[in-house]
């Protein structure tokens, strides 16, 4: 499709690692034997690594891949899972190699313990420093753990208090509602209705009586304005009873 400018260039072989003079291929004209040996060892390591790669690819291809077409997000999840698996395997391998190194070192120490002058070597200083630091680590870890526990307890207490206050508020609210309901029901009860009706009837009767007396006094054609007692009675009869 597109033209491809190809460029082949061999890099100048590096002088790093003390391999001066060796070309890319083992055709070294007059090279020293140690250089050849290092070159061969390096090539051996390379070929080993490449062999491991090919083997792992062959093993991977032998696994059956699922044939069904999965959704894209499912594929993403699957890929995440697999990547996490790789990470876990790497971590496990690192931990194991660290543990192995530690075991090897301790056995070497044990084997050489007689040769070490126990009084004034740096080795003892290192060991003492390590022990001090370990004690410090353990102590601070204990402290942090107890602080965490206290914090948890305080949080629990707070939560309990919150719950208690919540229930109290709820109680208050229900009480208020009950009061309101009681008031409403009382307003609408029949007793009140009959009482009201009676009250209204009495008011009407009294108003009629008032009017009767008023008309009596007016009809008698006396001048009620002059007599203070009559005036008082008339004015009192004017009072509108529904406003009581």
């Amino acid at each position, binding site marked *: *499709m597109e033209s491809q400018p190809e460029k082949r260039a061999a*890099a100048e072989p590096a002088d790093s690692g003390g391999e001066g003079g060796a070309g890319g291929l083992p055709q070294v004209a007059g090279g020293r034997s140690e250089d050849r040996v290092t070159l061969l060892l390096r090539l051996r390591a390379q070929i080993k690594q490449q062999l491991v790669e090919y083997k*792992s690819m062959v093993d991977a291809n032998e696994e059956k891949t699922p044939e069904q077409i999965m959704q894209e997000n499912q594929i993403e999840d699957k890929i995440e899972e697999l990547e996490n698996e790789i990470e876990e395997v790497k971590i496990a391998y690192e931990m194991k190699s660290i543990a192995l190194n530690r075991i090897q070192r301790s056995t070497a120490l044990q084997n050489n313990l007689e040769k070490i002058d126990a009084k004034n070597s740096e080795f003892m200083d290192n060991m003492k420093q390590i022990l001090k630091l370990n004690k410090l680590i353990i102590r601070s870890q204990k402290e942090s753990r107890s602080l965490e526990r206290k914090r948890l307890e305080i949080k629990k207490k707070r939560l309990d208090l919150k719950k208690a206050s919540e229930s109290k508020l709820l109680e208050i609210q229900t009480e208020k509602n009950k009061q309101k309901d009681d008031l409403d029901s009382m307003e609408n009860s029949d007793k009140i209705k009959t009482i009201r009706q009676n009250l209204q009837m009495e008011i009407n009767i009294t108003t009629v009586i008032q009017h009767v007396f008023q008309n009596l006094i007016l009809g008698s054609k006396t001048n009620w304005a002059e007599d203070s007692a009559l005036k008082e009675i008339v004015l009192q009869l004017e009072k509108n009873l529904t406003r009581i």
Partner: protein
Amino acid sequence: MSVLRPLDKLPGLNTATVLLVGADDALLQRLADSMLKTDCASELRVHLARSLPLPSNVNRPRVDLLVFVINLHSKYSLQSVEKSLHHVDASFFLGKACFLATGAGRENLCSVHRNTIVRLARTYRSPVLFCDLEVEGSRAAMAQRLARMLQISAGHVPGVSAMSLLSLLRSSESPSLEDL
């Protein structure tokens, strides 16, 4: 061959081949020169391509590392790289492919946002490297980095495989980018 496969050929002795794919020839050429100048114990071969698929009439060694060079100043380079991605076998993305974005420093000339490249790299689960290929120092540093990655992908470093390097280079995903 219409699809580039990583392990279909036997490796050459002490040689490692990198294929730089990008639309900008001058940048690729400069990067190739910088890579060839780096100190490397193995023999490096640099191939340049404007896009995939490569013409099948040429006899070439197996490709150990595939670098997609995207210039953030031109949308065309992003498009051509995206088209070339279809012609790459999936097993390349197990550590033998990476994305290189150049020109992120000059914001006013960028027509492609760097988040686009980051998302593209995340879709393909490959590392993305940023550098400025116009600047000599940055280019030399990137060339050294690529040379080291190439050595690992070619299997020249015992104990480190391409996939372990891939899991090392996995960047932690920040929650803001996840929502894009």
